[in-house]
């Protein structure tokens, strides 16, 4: 193994970074604030993949990377490592979430009812080109209901268990400080359920969508139906030094349960959740979870396949490293190729000579 030193590289590298940053112009607080205020779903996606909830820092990361999502997630994950972990919050439970969107494609009459919430599901997707002609788009106001929706909605899965539709399950018994944590320990297979769901929560949206979609199209074992999709805000419940639990604020979260067919007398269920409102990601991720149990090794729905390949920083890092100097590696490939050609040529010449020396029949 040998390395190639490139003379003059330092200056070129510095100028290359300058060129990248020059193209983005001056980044100030106003730009960051504009991104934060106007791009909430993009902010949510970045926070989810970075596994760090801070709308302000996510907006800053987007500003300084020009919206290059892999770089934005990377810089946030790197910054995260500079901060101490102060506490572990009380686990968020589904029926405690301030629910603003909750739908089921499997059951039309779910306890608590169906609330569409903010969505474009039933909208025409038309580009508002009038805005470019100087006519700002001001959205029409929502005609509020007389009474507010309930702050929380019951767990559909609990109701289904009561109806005998889902397999009974035990109580959660792991103390928060003992919950397996991918940021402190490696991902090993078969993965614990806690590792699988944490990994999916921070997975790259496009990767999860691609692999989940492959399962939906038939490359998996189970076709999903959304049992429940829920978007809402969860309280970050921490403990005061005097022992009192209190909420330090709220964070936006998404959850999805998908179901398929009966298995062992019960409906099979897959689950996923993430920071922010990102329903494509959680539906696709829950589909992967649903398909995992019977997945053949090496298939897109096998957990080792989808967890490794949707880890955004590792995947993008491995991909982009291929553009870095590989001269020695590639030189050995060239040497091998030339050697093979030389040997083949020599063999052909030798064969030709031998054929010429064969006696005529």
């Amino acid at each position, binding site marked *: 193994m040998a390395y190639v030193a490139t003379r003059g590289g330092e200056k070129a590298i510095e100028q290359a970074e300058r060129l990248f940053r020059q193209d983005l112009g001056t980044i100030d607080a106003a730009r960051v604030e504009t991104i934060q205020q106007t791009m909430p779903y993009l902010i949510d996606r970045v926070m989810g993949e970075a*596994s760090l909830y801070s709308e302000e820092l996510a907006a800053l990361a987007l500003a300084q990377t020009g919206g290059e999502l892999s770089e934005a997630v990377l810089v946030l994950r790197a910054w995260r490592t500079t901060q101490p972990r*102060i506490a572990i919050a*009380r686990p*968020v439970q589904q029926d405690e979430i301030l629910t603003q969107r909750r739908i089921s494609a499997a059951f039309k009459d779910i306890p608590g009812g169906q609330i569409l919430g903010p969505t474009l599901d039933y909208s025409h997707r038309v580009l508002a080109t009038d805005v470019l002609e100087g006519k700002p788009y001001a959205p029409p106001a929502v005609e509020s*209901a007389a*009474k507010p929706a309930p702050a929380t909605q019951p767990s559909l899965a609990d109701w289904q268990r009561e109806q005998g539709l889902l397999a009974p399950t035990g109580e*959660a018994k792991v*103390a928060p400080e003992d*919950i397996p944590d991918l940021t402190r320990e490696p991902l090993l297979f078969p993965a614990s*359920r806690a590792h699988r769901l944490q990994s999916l929560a921070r997975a790259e949206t496009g990767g999860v969508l691609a692999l989940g979609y492959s399962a939906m199209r038939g490359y998996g074992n189970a076709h999903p139906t959304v049992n429940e999709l829920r978007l809402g805000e969860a309280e970050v419940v921490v403990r005061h030094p005097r022992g009192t639990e209190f909420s330090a604020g709220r964070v936006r979260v998404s959850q999805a349960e998908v179901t398929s067919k009966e298995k062992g007398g019960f409906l099979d269920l897959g689950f996923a959740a993430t920071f922010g409102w990102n329903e494509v990601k959680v539906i696709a991720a829950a589909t992967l979870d649903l398909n995992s149990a019977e997945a053949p090794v090496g298939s897109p729905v096998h957990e080792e396949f989808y967890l490794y390949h949707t880890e955004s920083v590792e995947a993008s890092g491995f991909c982009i490293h291929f553009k870095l100097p590989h001269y020695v590696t590639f030189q050995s490939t060239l040497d091998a190729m030339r050697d093979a050609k030389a040997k083949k040529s020599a063999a052909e010449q030798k064969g030709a000579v031998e054929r010429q020396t064969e006696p005529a029949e």
Partner: protein
Amino acid sequence: MFNETPSGGPDQGAMLGILARARPERLKALAETLLESMGEIAVLTNRTGLVMVPMRDTVENVDFHLGEVLVSEAHITDAAGHIGYGMVTGRDLERAMAMAVVDLRIATRGEEPVTKDFLSEERAHLVAEDEKRMRQVEATRVEMETF
């Protein structure tokens, strides 16, 4: 499970929750006013950090880590050893410190008119904000029928 140590009760929890979500400028202004009559205060901690948020899976009731939330924390004490504590989501050390000051004030003197009024006003503001939003959300309730 979450460590169930003795607490200051639901009222204190609600009070701290209101302080954590109170309008930042009003909270900071209140803390500035209160500080003038609170004597020497020592700052034990004033930092940003992370709180890991677990979530409970509905399929197998397994708790898993959703991710970490950036928070600001302040921990202060007065000469008598009383403590004040503040933690808020986001990066705002002044806001966390202001929460700790109000918490310390209430811990040492109980609810005075100035803090009682503040908590009442902020609680009303937060309730109104939630109600406004959830009335809009309720407008999206849909009744599904099959044909």
